[in-house]
Each structure stands twice: as structure tokens, then as C-alpha cells.
């Protein structure tokens, strides 16, 4: 029985029965895809099982790879209204046989409606800079020389939420080579759009008085890498009978 189980798990690309430490929330897009494919499986046998139509690429595996990085400096750090985060996506979860079709970074911003000053919930502009880390640096050394800018963009945050997607397929393909994945650094800088309320707030120099941290927060953000790959051994074309 153990051998049979191991064979099946191996075909799923798993070395052993997974023991999830936390049951992460399933992204809504994955639920939608699962429900759609399950319905279609019952309806017809003529669809292409090796195409992920949501992303318009070939594949039979969709992963939401978790960010294993850490926050370098938070919103309430020395730089007011900015944040720096190190991101790491473990690409070794892909089996060598898999062909990478897409790696798309998704960063979702969400305001905490209960702990954020109402005036900050207005329109916000967010400067986003994303760097590829080229090599490891020693403690105390300058990190700037060891990273390359991948993206610099301004994002208009909606009153309650916002998101940013970025195609990182070429980069992720390189990360699959041993010793090439040093991760990414994300820098965010918040620029409140001037409204009468914010102007009054700023003119009274109250912005520094916002008790950022445990009582009031700036937008929370969550990054994940959507990875679509194709295992050609498990993707036979279906012949019309």
C-alpha cells in the first residue's frame, strides 16, 4: 500500500504525503478555475486539458507559490510612508520535467478599514519599485550595488484595495537553475493624493502624529507568484472517437 501511495504521490510531483502547517486560503481565481474545469469534465471530453485559458498559456499545473521572504522595514519605520520587503519564491517545487509557461507576480493591497484614518482611505498613489537581487551581500555591505531594477511604476490605489500584476516568466525561468534565485526586493512609497482634507491634515503637520503601528496601519499587502507549468508526460491530446 505504501509503494502504491508513493507512486501516486510521485506522479503528483510530491515526495511524501504533504502535511500543511497552515491551511492557506485558496485564491478565488483557483476556485473558479477548479469549478469550471470540474464542470467541463462532466459536460464534455473534447476540451484541451493542457491549456489554461485564464492566463492564455499552455499548462496543466497552476501553483500559487507562497512568498517566503520577510519585511526589511515596515510602514512605521524610519522612512515615513514607505516599506521595503524581501521576497523569495521557491521555484524548486517545479519538477525538472515541467515546462514553465507563466510566472506572474501579484501584489494585492488592502486597507484595514477599522484602523486607518478615514482621510487616508481616499485616493492614494503608490510608487512601486521592484529589484532583482543579483547576489548575496554580507551584513553591513551596500545592498544597492547587488540588485537591478526590474520595475518602477506608480499605482493608483482604489479607496479600499488595489493590485499590481507583473510578468516574471523569464526571471522565474532563470530561478530554476541551482544557485540563481536570490529573490526580489520590493519598495513601496505612499503618496496621498491632495484633497482638501489631506491638505488641512498636512498643513497642520499632523501626518507625523499619526500613531502608525499597532493602532493605525497603512495598506497591508500580500504577494504571491502564480506559476503555470506543463508536464508533457501527463498531457496527452485527446482523440475524437
Amino acid at each position, binding site marked *: 500500500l505504501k509503494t502504491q501511495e508513493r507512486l501516486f504521490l510521485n506522479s*503528483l510531483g510530491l*515526495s511524501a*504525503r504533504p502535511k*500543511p502547517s497552515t491551511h*492557506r486560503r485558496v485564491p478565488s481565481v483557483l476556485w473558479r478555475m477548479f469549478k469550471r474545469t*470540474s464542470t467541463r469534465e462532466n459536460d464534455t471530453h473534447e476540451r484541451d*486539458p493542457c491549456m489554461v485559458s485564464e492566463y492564455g498559456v499552455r499548462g496543466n*499545473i497552476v501553483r500559487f507559490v507562497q512568498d517566503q521572504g520577510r519585511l526589511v522595514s515596515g510602514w512605521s519605520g524610519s522612512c515615513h510612508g514607505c516599506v521595503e520587503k524581501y521576497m523569495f519564491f521557491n521555484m524548486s517545487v517545479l519538477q525538472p520535467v515541467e515546462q514553465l509557461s507563466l510566472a506572474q507576480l501579484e501584489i494585492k493591497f488592502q486597507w484595514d478599514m477599522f484602523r486607518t484614518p478615514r482621510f487616508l482611505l481616499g485616493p492614494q498613489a503608490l510608487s512601486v519599485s521592484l529589484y532583482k537581487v543579483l547576489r548575496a551581500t554580507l551584513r553591513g555591505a551596500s545592498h544597492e550595488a547587488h540588485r537591478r531594477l526590474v520595475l518602477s511604476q506608480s499605482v493608483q490605489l482604489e479607496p479600499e484595495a488595489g493590485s499590481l500584476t507583473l510578468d516574471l516568466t523569464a526571471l522565474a525561468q532563470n530561478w530554476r537553475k541551482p544557485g540563481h534565485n536570490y529573490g526580489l526586493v520590493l519598495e513601496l512609497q505612499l503618496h496621498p493624493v491632495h484633497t482638501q482634507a489631506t491638505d488641512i491634515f498636512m498643513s497642520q503637520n499632523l501626518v507625523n502624529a499619526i500613531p502608525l503601528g499597532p493602532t493605525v496601519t497603512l495598506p497591508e499587502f500580500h504577494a504571491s507568484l502564480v506559476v503555470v507549468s506543463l508536464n508533457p508526460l501527463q*498531457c496527452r491530446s485527446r482523440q475524437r472517437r
Partner: protein
Amino acid sequence: SAVYLPVTPSNVCKPRRLYIEFKDVGWQDWIIAPQGYLANYCHGECPFPLSESLNGTNHAILQTLVHSLDPHGTPQPCCVPIRLSPVSMLYYDNNDNVVLRHYQDMVVDECGC
């Protein structure tokens, strides 16, 4: 001469209903969805003469012929899946990532000899 035992329609080769529940094999912790699925299985005899409905291969037709002549020396052909369909599975991998994977050959749709 060979002795032919009557084969009733209920025990000829055909798909039988089998619902696999992942909880029964202790996989409910890491498989998010589905909780189970209708996998089915093939069971039944492939009697001489093989009718068209039994989807026999040429090899099976000849094997039943030889079996009818020498029942002890050659067994009857086996009842096996000839058409399978896929299932999508949503699960956690060893790194707590959520994975949607499309799996072929998971459900028996049709059996043959």
C-alpha cells in the same frame, strides 16, 4: 468440445460504480477539493463469443477462441478500462503552496476486453 457456462448480462465486462473518498485513504488534510470522486472500475467476464458491445481487441477475440478450445491452458481475456477521463485536483504541496493540477486517467468511462 468445450463446455460453455451461461454468462448473464450482469456479470459481463462493464464499468461498475466506485466512489473514492479521499478521507478513506487519509488524504483529507492536503487535498482541498474534491473531497472524493466517482472513479468506477471494470469488472466482469469476457465470454466467448465476444460481442461488439464488449469492445474486444483482435487479440481478445483470438484469446477467447483459444480459451474456448483449451479452458485450462489459456485464461479468458481481462476486463480493463479502455476510456478514462481526467479529474482536476486542488491541493497543498509540501511547501504549503496551493496547487491546481489536472490529472488524466482518473475516471473509468468505458471498459473492454
